[in-house]
Every structure is written in structure tokens, then in C-alpha cells.
């Protein structure tokens, strides 16, 4: 029976009782408990079900490495699956749900799988479920999926907030045990800016539990002293509940702070992700205890010896009444002593080493504990919990020598330094045969841009296990880091810590060493994923010899604990089976994060409205008020159409088109890109950027121009106005402005860096309004302020002036084919101008129009639209725009590309108009088919629709398209099959459906 001890518990506050609920049952615990310790205190030892076999599981650890005790926490929009009970601080009214079981944790039907484990070894699924073929999708896979997974998916949108912090520090110290504290103290004293983080709520790590004595003081007292010293240093910043999650190139590190997880109903962000740029990173992340592989080691009641000690010392909880201790090293004796001191029976200490332990073993013996050496566990009895252990000789094959009744087994297979952060960015490890561990190889650290290491490991994380060594190593590391950062550190006397004489650890990878396969099939390596010793051996036998193969084949180390308990043990079994040395088999790659971090924290604040900024034109709120329907165009929102009461979208679009054709319309063209190109070499530059000869443009005039990519494909188009001798204003498409600006900068900075040209994107400085339609001039004249007559301002002229008292720049350009003016004003005056134009146009029936009407208007005119007629594979020549390609220039961007064979082929697909025989509308994106099929069995095609609309002006469907040799095939009829099976027939015509001579715009 696991229970609360009547005394002790350095972390709990017995005066504050919290109630909490698990699977609907109410329990009580104390402030300072974790969910795991509180459940143990309430004699609830069954805490989860394993992933593959749904085996009953209890908690094995007391920390971040926990693979078994996972719960769903919270409810509704604050529910979160897969929370480790060991890392969950208890708070009042905590609600938890057990996982991966049905109908409940005690009676899980999935547990039946366990009985079939024999036929479900590693990788069995690669060898079966092969027939019948359709069964995989419809039968096997759905069943496997339902049994797999752990917790349930959250059903609702997360109610919490998350945030990011950016900090730059000299040194980031990860791990607030005694090594981290001591290193922080030294680095702080050297004046470095230090960020010290600790994943749990307490400082000091294992030392207080292990009974360390530093400078003659108990560890707790020493830690309190150091903490107050650190708190007084303004250059040292400390964060508990904050984990070093990942180390990346160039001293970049991610730090994950759980800000409010431990308080119920707290305000503020739940998690905070720190993006740290550190001069050096110091990992003082301690070590993790390894389980021992003996038959039945996954039964509830089997725990890590260090964890048992944690529960006893920290929470005054004993996981059982009779705790058998089993070990291959001295450390577990501390657990035996702690238990016996707390009055818990330790029937025996089973030590696999023939020679037994050192001073601690002596102490155990003097405390009256029975110590068995050279001994191992042959197997455990009990179905849902340990009831006893059978012992055998470690060097044998498992003949039982003795039975011992016990309800808990505390095991220790030795300690592995936490080398994850060291390894994330390429730090290498070395195998220490004596200490039986991988430790950071100081000669092969992760290196920065200067080729020097930027991560340093210290303390247990660096392979030191005795307090005195740990503190000494912390001093060394602090000095190394300080000096690497160009500071110096005063000598300080080495700290004194008590040191026991210890006996060396013995490598024990299975118990007993020569265990037959029947026992190996019951030795768990990876608890969550149910990977056993026999599985890894099977992988090796089948040729999965590389660690990565074995890992992936067996799923060892792929569970939510990422193999913190199983990797080294698994590796050793693999090496053993292959008859190789451990270092020859290698280690697996450690990948961030150290333990899982919330996806919400990765996303940070940028959610909902903050996800991506929405760009709004200066007139946006007017459109909103007018009831516009918006569409996203790049980061902009543009009015698609302005429906009136009772109108459908289609009706509104038609009305807007006819308004422009017959009266006058207003368009918000502010999103149009506006890039200023200025300088003595501006002419030369625009000649390279555009296919046209722009340098000959006269001041006061506009010219339509094309820009191509280096490969020759049409990229963007727009009107260029020459403002003065050295200044061009280049209009781009709305979506293209940023990209074209970057394109220009790219060429200026990398190729023509010596040209005297500046470019500036002034898109947002102006509001731009198009006034289009036969009444456009009358509207401007009503507004008054400048001469906009044909004589004063011819087609493709521009002029500065004033309208309604607002300084304006007016361009006489047209994208609709109608008489049209585009008026640019400073952004802040846009609204005033819009209102002035609207009221001046009222008598003419003026109305705003949106992007859809704009598209139809230009299509009626046969004008191309970037993104419709172009898609990155179309050259200007395909679109009949040869006239815009200068023959006089030596070069322009894209010229050489266009000369390549494929781009200058005579039979390319070229722009034409398409008219359905029926008068209906061609389906968007349809292809024109041709006889036959190609070598790959696909239908041959000869063209496609690029734009297609119903033209209200012409009262029929019109389309533009690209057709092989199209312009030479006027009048031919093509077949366009729709996806609905209907074949649409259309005749090739000129794309200029409306006013082909351009008489209407040139008035």
C-alpha cells in the first residue's frame, strides 16, 4: 500500500489541503504535492495504460522523464491530453482523466491485447495486414488507429494565451541544481548577464534529497544562501518552472516557461517561449536514472530508486510498505536508507555486483538491512501490482534462489547525464566505460560561427556524480564560459562537500545476464511504447543494426518521453546482440524539444486578428460602411463588390460594370504598388527592369511596361510615369509591390551596386482613386481645381494639381477601356477626395465598383491580368505584347531567357479570345483538347482558358485563353471538356471584345 508518512516532506505544506478529481473520484493532497505524489499518498498506484499492449502502469519516476503516468488535464476549452503527473503541481480542484483505456482504467478492454503480445513483437505490422488489399484502409488501419494514440484530442479552441520573449544574455544556464546555482554564482560574480532556468518549481535539484552536505551545511541551507546571493545580483535572472527546450545554431536557444499551469483560474499567459540569444550556453541539466531490465519490470510498483527517495523525502509518501531495492551501483542504497529511516520495511537490497557497494552499503548493513550481492531479480509476481520478487544469481540464467514478498521494487541501473541540449546542435558524446555512461565529449562541442564551442556542460550533466566533483566542475565550467566571453574571474577556494567512498558501478543490461528469451520477452525497455529486450534483439537479428533502424523498427525511444529512460538500455542490448561495443553502435540523434512543449507557445501571440497583419487602404472604413464584400489580395483586403439591398453578388457586379460603361464608377486603387526609382542612373535601371525602353519616356508622360523574371517569364506589369529627369514612378500590381521592390533591390544590391539609383516603395503613402466612365471628366470638372480637358491632359499624360482643394497627381490611364483618370493623393486626404468625387458624381449616377467588375471590364477590352493570363510560364510574346519589348536595347532582365529554344518556339500557346457557341460562360481553367493521347496516356491538349466571365456589356460569355498558334487560327472551334462531363465548344476570336480601336478611352 502506498501512503503518506506521518512526518517529513520537505516540499509539502500539511496545513494546506487541496482537493482534486481523477476520473470523477475526489482525492486530497497537500500544497507542494505533484499529481503523482498526491495519488500515491491516496494509495492510487494504477496511473495509466501503455500505448501498444494497454498494460496497466504505475508511476516510475518523479520527473520529466515519466513515461507512464499521463493524464488529460482540465476540461472544455482548457483540456489538455498527455500531461505528466510527475510534473503537474497540485492545485485546488485540479481535474484529471486517465487515458488510453476503455471503458475505464481498471477494466480496459484494450488490455486483452497484452495476452496476444506473443504474436505482436517489434515490427509485426510490417509483416502482416497485407491481404486483402482494401482491408488496410477500411478495417486494419481504423482499428489500429483507435487503439493507438494516448489521450483524447481537445475538442475546443484553446481559451489560453501564450507569448514570446526575446532576450540576449551572456550565458544561459539550464538546470537549477547545485551545479547550475554554483555556476550562476560564479558567472554572476564575473559580471556576466546570466539567465538561469529550472524546469521544476524548486531550486537545488537532487542534492537535498540525496543528503548532500556542502561547506558543512545541509544542502537545503547552502542552497538558500546561494539563492539570496543570486537574487541580490542585478545581472542574474532566475526562472523556475522554465525548461531549456532546444539549442540551435549560433547560440540560439529556446526556453519554455510554464507561467500559470500551477495555479487554477490564473490570469495572464499560460506559457511563455523565450527566444534566447546567448554568448554561451551552460547545461547543468543533471542526470537521469536508468531502469534495470528484469522480467516483469513494468508492473505497477516498480519504480526508479531515486524517484522512491524523492517521494519519501520531498512529499513524505512511501510507494509501498515493503520496498525491495535492486541495483548495480551505490546510489540506490541511499533510497534503502531513506526508506528505513522513514520506518518503511526494506526486505533486502539486491545488488548485482559480486563485491557489493562501498560506504553506503556499509551504512545499510549497520542499519540492519539485508544486502545480497551478485544477485538479481528473476521475475516478479503480481498481476496489477507487485506482490513479490524471485531472486537469482546475476551471472546465471535465472534459476530462482529465493522468493521475497514486497509491494514495491526500487531499481537503479545507474545514471545517464542529460546530454540532450549538448547534442541538439551537434555536440558529440563519448562512452565512459568505468562510469557506464555517455558523457559530453569536451573536444567535440557544438560550434559557432567562429569554430569554437558555444555549449559547455557541467556537473552531473557532464558525468560527475559526487557533490564535490559536481561543484568543482561547475566552477571550471563557469570559468571556461567567462573567459570565452572575454572576462576574467577571481580565484575562489573550491567548495568543500562531504564525499563517501564508493564502489564502482557494474554494467548490467539484463537481469540475469544470461536470461533466456522467455525472460527477455518480459523485460521492458520502453514502457510507454511497450518495447522489450526481446524486441531490440529481434531487430538486430533481422538486420536493423544501426541504432536509427533499431529504434524506428521497434519504436524504442519514440514515445512522449523520447526514450529518456530507455535509450541507453536499448542501445546496450543492441550492442550486446550484435556483439559490438556500445560506442561502435553509436547514439541516436537528440532532437528538440527536451520535453514536449505546447504548440500554443510555439505559435505565441500571433493568433486570430494578430495572425498576420491585414493591410487596409485609407478608404477601407468607407467601404465597410458601404457594405462591401472583401477579398484577400496579398495581405490587403480589397472590395470585391458593393452589393446594394436585395442584390445578389452577381447582380451587383453587373450593375457596377454597366455603371462604368454608361455613367461613371469609382475604384479604390490604393493597393496598386507605387515604387519610386530615383537617381542619375534611374533611366538605365528602368531600362533593365522593364522590357520596354523606359528611359525615352518624357517627363509628364506615362507608359505601360512589362517586367520579366531572369528566365524571361512575365512577372508584373503597370504604368510608369516619369516625374522628372531622374525620377520614375513605377506602378505595380497590388499583389506584386513588395516582391517587385525586393526584386529591384536584389539587382541593385548584388549586380549593379555601383549604379546611382535609389528605390523606395511608397505604396502606402498615397490613396489612389480611379474615376472611370464616359462621365469621368464631367465629375472632375464639377469637383474643380485643374484642367482635365483632352487638350490639357491627353491619354497617357499625368499632371500635378489640385482637386477640391486637395493636392493631387492625376494620371490619364485606363484599365477599363473607358475615359478614365487615376488620382493619387496623400493617404490622409484619400477620404476627403473620395467623398468629394462621390458627391460631385451624384447627378451622373456615380457608384463605387470592386475588383470583380474591374476584372470583367479589362477582359472585355482584352487586357491581360497578371496572375490570370500569366502564371510564371508565360512570356510577353505569348500574350501578343511583342510591341512592349524593345528591340533597341542591348539587354534587359529576361532577354536572354526569352531567346532560349523553348521560349522562342513558333508553336507556343498564345493569347486569343474565346466565344462559346452557345453564348454561355466557359468553365474557369478548362483545357482545349486535341485528338489522341500522349506517351503517358494523357489526353492531348492544345490550349486553356485563362479568364472567363459573363460580359453584361455584350450580353454573353467571353473568355481569354492561350491556344497553340492561336492568333493564326481565328474562327476555329475548340472543345473544352468541363469537370462535370459537359463539353463546351468555343470559337477562337480576337481578345479585344469591346471597342477594339480604343475610341472610348481616347476622348
Amino acid at each position, binding site marked *: 500500500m502506498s501512503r503518506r508518512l506521518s512526518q517529513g516532506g520537505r516540499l509539502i505544506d500539511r496545513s494546506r489541503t487541496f482537493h482534486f478529481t481523477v476520473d470523477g473520484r475526489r482525492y486530497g493532497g497537500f500544497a507542494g504535492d505533484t499529481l503523482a505524489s498526491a495519488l500515491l499518498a491516496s494509495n492510487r498506484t494504477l496511473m495509466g495504460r501503455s500505448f501498444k499492449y494497454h498494460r496497466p502502469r504505475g508511476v516510475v519516476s518523479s520527473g520529466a522523464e515519466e513515461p507512464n503516468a499521463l493524464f488529460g488535464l482540465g476540461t472544455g476549452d482548457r483540456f489538455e491530453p498527455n500531461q505528466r503527473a510527475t510534473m503537474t503541481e497540485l492545485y485546488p480542484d485540479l481535474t484529471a482523466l486517465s487515458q488510453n483505456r476503455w471503458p475505464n482504467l481498471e477494466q480496459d478492454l484494450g488490455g486483452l491485447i497484452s495476452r496476444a503480445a506473443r*504474436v505482436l513483437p517489434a515490427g509485426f505490422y510490417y509483416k502482416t495486414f497485407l491481404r486483402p488489399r482494401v482491408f*488496410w484502409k477500411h478495417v486494419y488501419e481504423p482499428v489500429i488507429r483507435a487503439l493507438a494514440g494516448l489521450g483524447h484530442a481537445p475538442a475546443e479552441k484553446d481559451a489560453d494565451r501564450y507569448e514570446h520573449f526575446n532576450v540576449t544574455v551572456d550565458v544561459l544556464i539550464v538546470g537549477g541544481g547545485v551545479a547550475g546555482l554554483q555556476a550562476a554564482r560564479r558567472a554572476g560574480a564575473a559580471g556576466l548577464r546570466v539567465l538561469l532556468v529550472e524546469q521544476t518549481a524548486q531550486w537545488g535539484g537532487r542534492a537535498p534529497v540525496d543528503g548532500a552536505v556542502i561547506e558543512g551545511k545541509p544542502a537545503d541551507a547552502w542552497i538558500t544562501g546561494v539563492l539570496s546571493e543570486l537574487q541580490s545580483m542585478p545581472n542574474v535572472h532566475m526562472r523556475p518552472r522554465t525548461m531549456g527546450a532546444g539549442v*540551435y545554431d549560433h547560440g540560439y536557444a529556446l526556453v519554455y516557461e510554464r507561467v500559470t499551469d500551477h495555479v487554477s483560474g490564473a490570469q495572464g499567459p499560460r506559457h511563455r517561449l523565450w527566444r534566447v540569444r546567448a554568448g554561451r550556453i551552460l547545461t547543468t541539466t543533471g542526470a537521469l536514472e536508468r531502469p534495470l531490465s528484469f522480467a516483469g519490470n513494468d508492473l505497477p510498483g516498480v519504480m526508479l530508486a531515486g524517484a522512491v527517495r524523492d517521494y519519501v523525502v520531498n512529499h513524505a509518501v512511501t510507494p509501498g510498505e515493503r520496498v525491495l531495492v535492486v541495483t548495480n551501483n551505490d546510489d540506490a542504497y541511499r533510497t534503502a536508507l531513506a526508506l528505513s529511516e522513514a520506518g518503511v520495511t526494506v526486505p533486502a537490497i539486491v545488488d548485482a555486483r559480486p563485491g557489493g557497494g562501498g560506504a553506503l552499503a556499509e551504512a545499510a548493513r549497520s542499519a540492519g538491512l539485508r544486502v545480497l550481492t551478485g544477485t538479481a531479480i528473476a521475475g516478479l509476481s503480481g498481476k496489477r501490482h507487485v506482490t513479490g520478487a524471485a531472486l537469482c544469481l546475476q551471472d546465471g540464467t535465472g534459476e530462482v534462489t529465493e522468493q521475497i514478498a514486497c509491494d514495491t521494487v526500487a531499481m537503479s541501473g545507474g545514471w545517464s547525464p542529460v546530454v540532450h541540449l549538448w547534442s541538439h546542435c551537434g555536440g558529440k558524446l563519448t562512452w565512459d566505460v568505468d562510469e557506464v555512461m555517455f558523457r559530453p565529449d569536451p573536444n567535440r562541442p557544438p560550434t559557432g560561427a567562429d569554430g569554437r564551442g558555444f555549449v559547455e556542460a557541467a556537473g552531473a550533466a557532464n558525468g560527475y556524480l559526487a557533490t564535490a566533483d559536481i561543484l568543482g566542475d561547475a566552477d571550471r565550467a563557469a570559468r571556461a564560459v567567462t573567459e570565452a566571453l572575454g572576462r576574467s574571474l577571481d580565484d575562489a577556494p573550491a567548495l568543500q562537500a562531504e564525499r563517501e567512498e564508493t564502489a564502482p558501478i557494474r554494467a548490467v543490461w539484463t537481469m540475469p545476464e544470461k536470461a533466456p*528469451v522467455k525472460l527477455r520477452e518480459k523485460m521492458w525497455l520502453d514502457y510507454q511504447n511497450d518495447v522489450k529486450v526481446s524486441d531490440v534483439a*529481434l531487430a538486430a537479428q533481422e*538486420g536493423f543494426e544501426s541504432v536509427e533502424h533499431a529504434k524506428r523498427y521497434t519504436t524504442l525511444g519514440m514515445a*512522449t518521453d523520447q526514450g529518456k529512460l530507455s535509450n541507453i538500455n536499448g542501445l546496450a542490448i543492441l550492442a550486446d546482440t550484435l556483439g559490438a561495443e556500445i560506442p561502435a553502435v553509436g547514439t541516436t540523434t537528440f*532532437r528538440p524539444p527536451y520535453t514536449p512543449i505546447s504548440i*500554443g507557445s510555439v505559435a505565441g501571440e500571433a493568433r486570430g486578428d494578430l495572425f498576420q497583419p491585414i493591410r487596409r487602404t485609407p478608404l477601407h472604413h468607407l467601404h465597410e460602411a458601404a457594405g462591401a464584400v472583401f477579398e484577400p489580395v496579398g495581405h490587403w483586403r480589397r472590395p470585391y463588390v458593393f452589393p446594394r439591398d436585395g442584390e445578389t453578388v452577381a447582380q451587383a457586379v453587373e450593375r457596377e460594370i454597366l455603371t462604368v460603361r454608361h455613367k461613371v464608377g469609382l475604384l479604390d486603387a490604393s493597393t496598386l504598388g507605387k515604387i519610386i526609382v530615383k537617381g542619375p542612373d534611374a533611366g538605365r535601371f528602368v531600362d533593365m527592369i522593364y522590357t520596354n525602353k523606359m528611359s525615352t519616356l518624357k517627363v509628364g508622360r506615362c507608359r505601360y511596361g512589362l517586367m520579366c523574371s531572369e528566365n524571361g517569364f512575365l512577372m508584373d506589369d503597370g504604368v510608369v510615369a516619369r516625374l522628372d529627369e531622374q525620377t520614375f514612378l513605377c506602378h505595380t500590381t497590388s499583389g506584386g509591390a513588395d516582391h517587385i521592390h525586393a526584386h529591384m533591390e536584389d539587382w541593385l544590391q548584388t549586380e549593379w551596386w555601383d549604379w546611382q539609383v535609389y528605390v523606395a516603395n511608397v505604396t502606402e503613402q498615397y490613396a489612389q482613386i480611379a474615376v472611370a466612365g464616359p462621365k469621368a471628366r464631367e465629375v472632375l470638372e464639377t469637383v474643380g481645381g485643374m484642367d482635365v480637358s483632352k487638350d490639357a491632359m491627353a491619354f497617357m499624360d499625368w499632371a500635378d494639381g489640385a482637386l477640391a482643394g486637395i493636392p493631387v497627381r492625376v494620371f490619364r490611364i485606363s484599365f477599363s477601356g473607358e475615359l478614365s483618370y487615376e488620382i493619387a493623393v496623400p493617404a490622409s486626404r484619400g477620404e476627403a477626395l473620395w467623398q468629394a468625387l462621390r458627391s460631385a458624381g451624384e447627378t451622373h449616377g456615380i457608384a463605387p465598383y470592386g475588383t470583380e467588375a474591374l476584372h470583367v471590364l479589362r477582359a472585355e477590352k482584352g487586357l491581360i491580368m497578371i496572375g490570370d493570363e500569366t502564371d510564371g510560364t508565360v512570356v510577353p510574346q505569348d500574350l501578343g505584347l511583342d510591341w512592349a519589348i524593345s528591340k533597341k536595347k542591348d539587354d534587359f532582365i529576361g532577354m536572354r531567357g526569352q531567346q532560349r529554344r523553348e521560349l522562342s518556339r513558333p508553336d507556343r500557346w498564345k493569347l486569343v479570345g474565346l466565344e462559346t457557341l452557345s453564348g454561355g460562360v466557359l468553365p474557369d481553367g478548362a483545357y482545349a483538347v486535341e485528338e489522341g493521347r500522349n506517351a503517358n496516356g494523357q489526353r492531348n491538349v492544345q490550349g486553356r482558358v485563362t479568364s472567363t466571365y459573363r460580359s453584361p456589356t455584350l450580353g454573353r460569355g467571353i473568355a481569354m485563353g492561350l491556344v497553340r498558334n492561336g492568333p493564326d487560327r481565328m474562327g476555329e472551334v475548340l472543345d473544352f471538356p468541363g469537370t462535370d462531363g459537359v463539353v463546351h465548344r468555343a470559337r477562337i476570336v480576337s481578345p479585344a471584345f469591346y471597342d477594339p480601336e480604343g475610341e472610348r478611352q481616347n476622348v
Partner: protein
Amino acid sequence: MQRYSAFAIAREALRHHTGWQRAWRSPEPKRRYDTIIIGAGGHGLATAYWLGKLYGIRDVAVIEKGWLGGGNTGRNTTIIRSNYLQDPSAAIYEKSRSLYETMSQDINYNVMFSPRGVLMLAQTEAEARGYRRTAHANALQGVETQFVSSWRVKQLCPIISLEGPRYPVLGALWQPRAGTARHDAVAWGYARACSDMGMDIIQKCEVTGIRSEGGQVTGVSTTRGEIECDRLGIVVAGHSGALADMAGFRLPIESVALQALVSEPIKPAMDVVVMANTVHGYMSQSDKGEMVIGGGADGYNNYTQRGSFHHIEETVRALVETFPMISRLKMLRQWGGIVDMTGDRSPIISKTPLGNCFINCGWGTGGFKAVPGSGWAMAELMAKGQSPLAEAFTLDRFREGRFIDESVAAGVAH
């Protein structure tokens, strides 16, 4: 070859699985082979497989510097689809997809091809138009796709939010027979089949030089000695540039990091694959229950197999908008691979300036789906000197401007 079946497992269970043989042999390299394939990724192994299977060429070595399948084949997010726009792409990806349908049975290894369907979301008008066009093209190419409404999207994937404040879902391109497969199994299954045909798969053997005489390839230098051959296939994805350099030619390829991540496993929440290209993110749920997440490639060249974290942030942000419930899941693991990007984002399956030396590369961010089909085409090219499926993907297309540009319809191409 020891056949795999439920029966075989039951039989082996009786003797505690001690009777299972090696899935593939690990031989010492011979002095010469008829054909050498460099790179035991999916594409290299598939090439070898079809060389043996279709053309009886079995004196083959597949040489791998690390462990087989350890490159991008073992790092990708396993999306398999063939809803490509351009004819040559649709042809090879659809061939590949159809080979995936029967791969498990063909090689007697369960690669868990799961044709659960792929939705590519249209979140702007332009994207919707692009996908309508693709649907038209696919119909003529023999690829079954459909442009579906946002209502249908919600039905297929209830956890999706249609009304993100930024980019509402307007519809999607739906390919019902697209899906995912188990990436490692594809490599292992092919390796086993190749080994069974007598081919040698040589791991931990890095090619350090390519030897030739009179413009013809004669062999390779490796960390395990010189090996001669009459025919050479270079199939090394991110390291293609380095190998081409050894063979004396240059490639229009840039190597950049592409990253992915998985959440902790949860019970089934999503039955289809969803790609949201406007915001650069995609997600599916593995059979284990992990949400498998990927996004865009890094913006600079590198070989470290580590990307920059801000790309992960960008991807995750996009997906939290698309699937708000994932915010309370946890990121379990992230990693990166080095992808080989060509200028037009389409692959190269081609002869090279060096006689009898062939190259297959440039699959970039999306070549897992192509594994069987690419191997098929490469094998045909190596055996017969030409292949209709590979014809458009020659190296000289860049000089001729004969690009096969898929970015036309969709931003990302996984």
C-alpha cells in the same frame, strides 16, 4: 525470401521469434558490379528494385554513406498525392501513386499506404482558380480530383476552422485516393526485395569519387575501396551537387533545410491530409496518433539537417489558425532534412554529360510520393536509354527553358 504473413508470425511466435531471418544482407562490396546506384534512399532503392524486377539487371550494388533510408526518405511527412498541374508531373506522380496502391503486396512488406484523401485548401480567389484549373487538367490526365466546397471540407475534416480571421476557406482540391504511407517501411521493404534479388546493399560506405575513362563512367571510389561498374545512377537528393561535382558536371540545384515536427500522439481526430498553401502549413495524423506537421523550406542553403526555428513558428502559427484545437497539444519532436531544389521545383531524371552515368534528383520538398514511380522511370532510362515518364525531366531543360513549373498552381509542393 522468407515470406511475411500473419501465419508466419504465428509460426514464429511458437519459437519466440528466433527464426526470423535478416531483412537484407549486409555484404562486403565486390570488386565490380554491372550497375551501381549511389544512395540507398527511397529513390535509389526503387531504381534498383525495378532494374531487377523489370529488366533482369541484378548485378547491382546500392551504396549508402549512412544507413539506408536515413536521408529524406526517413525524415519526410509522407504525403502521397498526384494532383499536379503539368502533364509530365501528373504522369509520373500518378504512376507512382498507383504503384503505392499495390506496393505492400508487390514486395510482401506492409508499407501502410493509406489512401485517406488529401485536401488542398483554397484560401484566396487566386488559389481557388488555380485549383479549378488543376481539377480540369487532372481530369484529362487520368488523375481523380475534384474541387469541393468549404462545406464538404468541414465534413471531411471537422477540426478545421473555415472562418479564420485572415484567410477563409473557399473550397479545396480533393484527391480521394491520395494519402500517406510509412516512410521507413518503403525503404526497408525495397531493400529487402533488392537484397532478395541478389543485389548488394552496402551501408556505411561513402562515395568519395567517380571514376571515368574516355567520357565513360568506370567506377566509384568509396570509403570502403574502389568499386568498378559499367553503369552508374546517382540518387542522393540533398547531396546531388557534391556527387555531380565528382562526376565533373554542375547541377542547377540548391540544397536547403526543410523541417517537420510531430505532436504527442492523441486518439484519432483527423482522417484526411490537409494542406494550406497560402499560409504554408500542412498536417495529417499518423496511425500512431501524432499530428504530423510541415511547412516551408528555409531561405538559405545549408547542409546541417537543422533548420531555423522561426520557420517552425511560422508553420505552427498557420496551423493553429487552421486547426485551433492543436494549440493545446504538445510538440514532441522536430527535425530537418536537406532537400534538393531545382529552379522550376521539378525533378531531374536524366542522362548526364558523363557517359553511362545517370542522375535522379531535384525532388525537393515532395519526392516521397514519387519513390516507386521515379524508380520505375529511372530504371527504364538506365536500362533502355529512354523513358516516356522521364522524358520531360532532362537536365538540358534548364538550358532550353523547358521548365515544368508546378508553383503555378500551388505555393508549396509536398
